[in-house]
């Protein structure tokens, strides 16, 4: 029975919005459990130091204080967080929820105080006395990886947490054949996702049931539960994780953090709910950060712009600890694997490192690895254009994978399953009016330089366990799941392992489910973010929700629908194949009067005594489906950025921004575009402004929004979006993930636009962010050159 899609591909208004718009939605800090106590955490002021003495007695005596927890206590009660990875090249040390022997970055939790309210808990922190013995500090990955560097983890042989080497066997040949060889070092700053809602955790222990419940501002409730079970040595059946409304995540909210463990331990001990809410300073000090690469890369190309190969050394500064469940390897392996992008590159080899330093741990952030890998590659593509005198668009065209090459295995071994990069480029150039832009560009003034930047990219989405197995990331499930249930009164409910942080799953998954069953959307609701109500799965990160949870939902819905049809056929005394289900009614094709409603079928399914079910059909209407998709499906896209750079101030103004993207079938184009807008904003932020800065002593200098600069309305342009839709052959849904392409594309497109603008001055762009002060310096250095 062919299913007509009524809601999928339409711009349905979001169901979650009325709650959010009226202030009724409950985020973590809005939950109210009576008797809740608040935690404040004393954090290390040193980047690297031995803990000599921790004296908490005066704090215990402070008014309103209920308990104080130290590293010694935690060592007795919980295991350190361990990020495991199978395979060679990786080593890790645990991260105790409260520091015991040593502190390894500024902001690391040392003592937790729990009191009647946060004000009181913070007062009491001032009474804690800690004596530190400072150790040598490492803030530079290239120094930290040198033999003989001071060790950050005493139990490891050096600070290289991960190293891998790859050679596809064709790289030497490629370099021998090359007429053009480029060798450059690129750097990407350290970013933080800074969701507007900080992290938070609220734990409550039900002694009668023996159940510990953690409400967490998390993207990944089941993986969080598994990590907690390990750390607390509890069976998963005794743990429940619930995600309330979450105010943005973008990656860092998928990790297990010390504070999750601290509130659980305190709730267990005190028998009262215990809550910790991250403040912005803590967020900028301790929520997983990202990027921070140095990349030495050589490129081989022919004289007419055909790229032959890359040799890369990627060094990623991952901070003090490897994070559960992604490990420190996430950023370097993703960056390395994406470097070939949408191009037919013959030869490729790389060495990729994750190196520990005395900084905040680095983990997942929108566009992880891909933003860096794409920035490096697309800068090089533009450099080839400059050297050969070809237009940057033409160089891309000469190197693209052709639509007929797909599925295509890239030089790094990724399988691009679908998409047409040439079509994407053409669409973007046309939407931008590229030829006219180029003509117009020549009219730059002497102080303002106009630049046009392109970026073509591939986006790794909807990853299955195959990808995580290949990488050795054994703690990530890779699959997701859905339970579909038609209630006895006929409403259709989907329980999924995804967990929204603002992506609008309550709407988009309801669109998918309503179409799949054949009911009005009003009859459908989605439940997510609760390990007791939803089946086990990975959660929402790495652009996977629509592909994997959406795919599971479709498969479960099909099973339920088949059962509905079987029962209806029996009720109508018709053949199953003659039945159609639409708008919540099942009828004989061409005979709309011979019908039953889904409600009638459901009533019979749950109360078989009210009639008779077909002989081989069990009662109830419910199915649970686990779905482990293929290793990945790739979205593609092209960005065009047009900038004006003020050569006197180093200020960049983005005057046009055009995106062409292809994520297969769009469930809700309005939401797809919203994701692109937000992702582009984060890419522009990384390209121009955002940088977590540490001084040489490992002191973070960007601990407020006055120092860590998020783009505002004044920096961001209107963003024009056009689409192509190439459904992937490899997923059940026809959907691809798409939440990261905007960030991946924008970082490189803006960097290329600035480089294009300043080329007449002889400025080359190798390092992000291109903040006004950096650009000012580059422009002045270039002008001083003879």
């Amino acid at each position, binding site marked *: 029975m062919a299913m007509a899609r009524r809601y999928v591909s339409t711009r349905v208004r979001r169901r979650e919005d009325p709650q*959010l*718009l009226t*202030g009724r939605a409950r985020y973590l800090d809005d939950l109210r459990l009576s008797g809740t106590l608040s935690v404040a955490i004393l954090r290390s002021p040193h980047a690297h130091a031995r803990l000599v003495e921790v004296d908490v007695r005066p704090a215990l005596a402070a008014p309103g204080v209920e308990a104080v927890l130290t590293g010694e206590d935690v060592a007795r009660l919980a295991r350190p967080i361990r990020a495991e990875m199978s395979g060679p090249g990786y080593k890790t040390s645990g991260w105790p929820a409260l520091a015991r022997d040593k502190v390894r970055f500024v902001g690391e939790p040392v003592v937790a105080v729990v009191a009647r309210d946060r*004000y009181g808990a913070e007062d009491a922190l001032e009474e804690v006395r800690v004596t530190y013995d400072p150790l040598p500090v490492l803030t530079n990955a290239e120094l930290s990886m040198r033999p003989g560097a001071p060790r950050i983890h005493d139990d490891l042989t050096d600070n290289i947490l991960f190293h891998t080497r790859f050679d596809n066997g064709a790289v030497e040949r490629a370099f021998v054949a090359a007429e053009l060889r480029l060798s450059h070092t690129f750097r990407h700053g350290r970013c933080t996702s800074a*969701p*507007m809602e900080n992290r938070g955790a609220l734990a409550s222990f039900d002694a009668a049931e023996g159940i510990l419940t953690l409400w967490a501002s998390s993207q990944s409730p089941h993986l969080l539960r598994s990590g907690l079970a390990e750390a607390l040595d509890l069976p998963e059946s005794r743990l429940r994780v619930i995600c309330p409304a979450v*105010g943005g995540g973008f990656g860092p909210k998928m990790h297990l953090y010390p504070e999750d463990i601290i509130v659980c331990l305190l709730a267990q001990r005190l028998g009262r709910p215990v809550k910790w809410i991250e403040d912005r300073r803590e967020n900028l000090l301790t929520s997983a950060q990202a990027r921070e690469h140095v990349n030495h890369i050589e490129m081989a190309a022919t004289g007419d712009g055909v790229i032959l190969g890359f040799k890369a050394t990627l060094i990623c500064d991952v901070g003090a600890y490897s994070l559960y469940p992604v490990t420190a390897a996430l950023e370097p392996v993703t960056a390395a694997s994406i470097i070939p992008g949408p191009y037919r590159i013959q030869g490729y080899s790389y060495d990729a490192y994750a190196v520990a330093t005395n900084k905040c741990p680095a983990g997942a952030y929108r566009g992880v690895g891909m933003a860096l890998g794409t920035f490096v590659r697309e800068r090089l593509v533009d450099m080839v254009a400059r050297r050969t005198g070809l237009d940057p668009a033409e160089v891309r065209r000469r190197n693209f994978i052709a639509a007929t090459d797909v599925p295509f295995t890239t030089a790094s071994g990724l399988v691009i399953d679908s998409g047409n990069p040439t079509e994407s480029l053409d669409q973007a150039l046309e939407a931008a009016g590229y030829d006219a832009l180029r003509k117009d560009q020549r009219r730059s003034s002497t102080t303002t330089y106009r630049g046009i930047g392109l970026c073509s990219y591939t986006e790794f989405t909807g990853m299955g366990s195959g990808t995580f197995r290949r990488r050795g990331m054994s703690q990530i499930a890779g699959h997701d799941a859905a339970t579909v249930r038609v209630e006895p009164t006929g409403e259709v409910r989907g329980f999924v392992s995804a967990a929204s942080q603002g992506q609008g799953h309550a709407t988009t998954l309801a669109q998918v489910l309503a179409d799949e069953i054949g009911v009005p959307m009003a009859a459908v609701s989605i439940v997510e973010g609760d390990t007791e109500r939803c089946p086990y799965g990975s959660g929402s990160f790495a652009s996977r929700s629509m592909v994997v949870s959406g795919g599971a939902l479709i498969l479960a819905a099909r099973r339920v629908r088949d059962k509905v049809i079987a029962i209806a056929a029996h009720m109508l005394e018709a053949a199953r194949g003659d039945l159609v289900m639409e708008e919540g009614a099942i009828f004989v094709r061409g005979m709309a009067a011979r019908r039953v409603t889904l409600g009638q079928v459901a009533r019979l399914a749950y109360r078989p005594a009210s009639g008779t079910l077909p002989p081989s059909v069990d009662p109830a209407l419910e199915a649970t489906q686990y779905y482990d998709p293929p290793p990945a499906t790739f979205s593609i896209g092209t960005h065009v950025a047009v900038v004006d750079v003020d050569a006197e101030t180093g200020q960049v103004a983005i005057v046009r921004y055009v995106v062409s993207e292809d994520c297969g079938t769009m469930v809700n184009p309005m939401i797809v575009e919203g994701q692109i807008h937000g992702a582009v904003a984060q890419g522009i932020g990384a390209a121009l402004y955002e940088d977590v800065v540490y001084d040489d002593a490992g002191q973070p200098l960007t601990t*407020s929004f006055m120092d860590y600069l998020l783009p505002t*309305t004044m920096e961001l342009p209107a963003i024009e979006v056009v689409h192509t839709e190439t459904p992937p052959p490899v997923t059940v849904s026809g959907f691809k993930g798409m939440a990261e392409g905007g960030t991946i594309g924008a970082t490189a497109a803006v960097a290329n636009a600035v480089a294009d603008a300043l080329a007449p001055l002889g400025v080359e762009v190798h390092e992000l962010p291109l903040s006004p002060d950096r650009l000012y310096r580059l422009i002045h250095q270039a002008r001083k050159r003879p």
Partner: protein
Amino acid sequence: MKERTIRLTVNGRPYERTVEVRKTLADFLREDLDLTGTHLGCEHGVCGACTVVVNGEAVRSCLLFAVQLEGANILTVEGLADGDNLHPIQEAFWEHHGLQCGFCTPGFLLTLYCFLKETPRPSEAEIREAISGNLCRCTGYHNIVIAARAAAEKLASAGPTP
């Protein structure tokens, strides 16, 4: 801990409460009045998530102490809709997908509420300027600006509001 008793009106309702003098207006609204629609994104006056309207002006509730609000008339996001009828600004945000996670949204709504009263027919540049002190990490502001423009048109065509 020093406490003081204050009387003020929030969303048209009079309250009398005794609060610690060091308690911020934001914490007072959220904890003492359970009006949790006012969100805290930074607690240092930059993000605008905590914006509420005090005596007709948009202010950052994380930067004020509750005791400074004696006698004040306050509007929070909970008071913006008229019963089940969304305010035109809320309606426009819904229609134009001006929110994703929604955490910043109350601050934008109330900032625009004050701005559009003063500037009923704003240009796009004026809108961007008016909300440049509010941070949103999800939307890139693109649809917020569109929603603001649509709200301005709706409000202007509906005539002056009280």
